[in-house]
């Protein structure tokens, strides 16, 4: 029993010391403005994310979970993760915060890093740039400076290669979100374009020696993979991605139409204001020439209510999403072109 108490005692002291360091991780020494330059993931985390999606995430539902780890200089090390249950409507009494706290408390008992460093989410064909993701990532990044969101694309992975990307919000976007001011002026001031919303952080995978030993064991014992999806020439997923892209472009064009109407309305309003002012002046001059008191200046803003500018954040998000789709498509076509040329070379060799 003594050793157990020691174990929990040290856990308690380590947690209090991290409370003192504002939860920034045991290894972190620097100030808060150093962005994360690299994300280092344990092999275990990758396997867990894959398994979580495979078992619980069929269909268009996204699966989510929490990443645990620590920060070492400018590197974010992710050493473990746990999944979050799906949100079901009939589960009203399910307390997420409590689930999270319990999970982290229990993991602390078995010496697993219990520091929150981010979250992961699966995505459907690469469509993850949504308002919800932005809000979640903002609240994470606001609370924990170095947090990232890992986007796992299961369909692309099934095509042959692991698709895992880590994103953070750029500092500019963080500032805008902090103000909670998404009006066009603020966005223009911040000089935010859709390319500068998310920054991708490079990922490396690191394993300990013992896990390497395990991998050798597995390789000896398990059968060679009999599916080489990566080399298949079919491009069915391309069609789906293009369809999603078209939907987004439609939304974007609607957005543009709205913006154009707004611009037109504003300029018409300006003209009307101008005309009104001119008429007023003329009347006043006439009255002066007739010796009557001039009409009072009326508050123009009450007569001509300014139009609301359309929200710019949504169009930024749509633009960002279109950008992601286009990049995915380009990657995919590059791969396929390579494969086609290989097939051509083989055919020429045969004939």
């Amino acid at each position: 029993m003594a050793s157990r108490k020691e174990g929990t005692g040290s856990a308690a002291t380590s947690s209090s010391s991290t409370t003192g360091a504002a939860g920034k991780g045991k290894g972190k020494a620097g100030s808060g403005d150093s962005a994360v330059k690299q994300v280092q993931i344990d092999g275990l985390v990758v396997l867990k994310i894959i398994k979580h999606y495979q078992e619980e995430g069929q269909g268009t539902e996204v699966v989510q979970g929490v990443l645990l780890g620590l920060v070492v200089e400018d590197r974010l090390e992710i050493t473990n993760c746990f999944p979050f249950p799906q949100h079901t409507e009939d589960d009203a009494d399910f307390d997420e915060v409590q689930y999270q706290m319990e999970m982290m408390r229990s993991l602390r008992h078995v010496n697993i890093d219990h520091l929150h460093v981010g979250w992961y989410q699966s995505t459907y064909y690469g469509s993850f740039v949504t308002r919800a993701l932005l809000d979640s990532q903002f609240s994470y990044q606001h609370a924990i400076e170095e947090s990232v969101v890992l986007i796992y694309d299961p369909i692309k992975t099934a095509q042959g290669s692991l698709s895992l990307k880590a994103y953070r919000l750029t500092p500019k976007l963080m500032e805008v979100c902090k103000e909670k001011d998404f009006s066009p002026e603020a966005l223009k001031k911040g000089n935010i374009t859709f390319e500068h919303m998310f920054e991708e952080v490079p990922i490396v995978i690191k394993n300990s020696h013992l896990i390497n030993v395990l991998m050798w064991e597995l390789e000896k014992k398990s059968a060679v993979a009999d599916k080489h999806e990566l080399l298949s020439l079919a491009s069915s997923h391309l069609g789906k991605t293009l369809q999603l892209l078209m939907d987004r472009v439609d939304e974007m064009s609607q957005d543009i139409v709205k913006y154009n109407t707004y611009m037109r309305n504003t300029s018409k309003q300006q003209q009307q204001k101008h005309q009104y002012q001119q008429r007023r002046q003329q009347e006043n001059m006439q009255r002066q020439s007739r010796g009557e008191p001039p009409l009072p200046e009326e508050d123009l803003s009450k007569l001509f209510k300014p139009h609301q500018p359309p929200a710019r954040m949504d169009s930024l998000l749509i633009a960002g999403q279109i950008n992601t789709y286009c990049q995915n498509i380009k990657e995919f076509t590059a791969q396929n072109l390579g494969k086609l040329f290989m097939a051509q070379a083989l055919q020429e060799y045969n004939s």
Partner: protein
Amino acid sequence: MATPAVPPSTPPATPTETPAAASDPAPAPSPASVSAPAPAPVPAPTPAPASSSDPAAAAATTAAPGQTPASAPAPAQAPAQSLPGPALPGPFPGGRVVRLHPVILASIVDSYERRNEGAARVIGTLLGTVDKHSVEVTNCFSVPHNESEDEVAVDMEFAKNMYELHKKVSPNELILGWYATGHDITEHSVLIHEYYSREAPNPIHLTVDTSLQNGRMSIKAYVSTLMGVPGRTMGVMFTPLTVKYAYYDTERIGVDLIMKTCFSPNRVIGLSSDLQQVGGASARIQDALSTVLQYAEDVLSGKVSADNTVGRFLMSLVNQVPKIVPEDFETMLNSNINDLLMVTYLANLTQSQIALNEKLVNL
């Protein structure tokens, strides 16, 4: 620990309680203090009665007839080779095959690396599903425990709590058994196995040899069977099971990628770009083809005797290459290339469009 405990939100909106959760670091230290006393009393009641009485009978055989009623009838007759049979109720049908997912083994190795000072091994619970022919283990979590010369204490309360939490995510998983690192089955294993047989009928015991005896990490699975002379005190014997590895497709791909760290000097790899992946996959096929060619040459030169099944596979392999008229192939190739080029062009066009739109709006 000022973790803000922010739950990620999904489109069916859930409130992100950032201010409420972040503003009270008070609950964070208190779990640390609350949990310290909590595990301490719990191991005392459950293991104390069992362990105080059993170490007295300190030999490897302990009496456990009441605990494993399920396994009592059938295995008592023929533990080594009994077929499933209707006499064996419970989730383990005696199909003798355990299918493991790699995530379990990685998890076990990871918890072994994080064990407490002085602990020689770690144990934990195995979760998974059962079907008619085999048992599939898909998840696991480690359970804190204390082991000394003559007694062992397992925090079963913790195990129950963790199982409840896990069930919220995957409601289909059942407790299948438990695992331990180390290469031997000790007396304490028998006790722990007994605890687990209260949770699950006929639990499986998995050992992962992290001490690398014989230079290998051997992974073995056992189920317990009774043995001994009927009518006297029954002993417990662990009979081995076949272990197979099951992979989902995506898991296979993930494992292949992770395996690459074995070859890099500081055990670090980056995710490769698209064309590199194609290159890697074709290199693998090239290796496989050269192995096959080597085998064919050996057979032809008489070094290796021919095997009919392999020959049949080879023939089906060669016949799978489709025979296409060159002109048809040319047209197919060209149309595919044109499609891809067009898509690339459209994607680039779209990107420049939105960039332009951005510039215009910001005027």
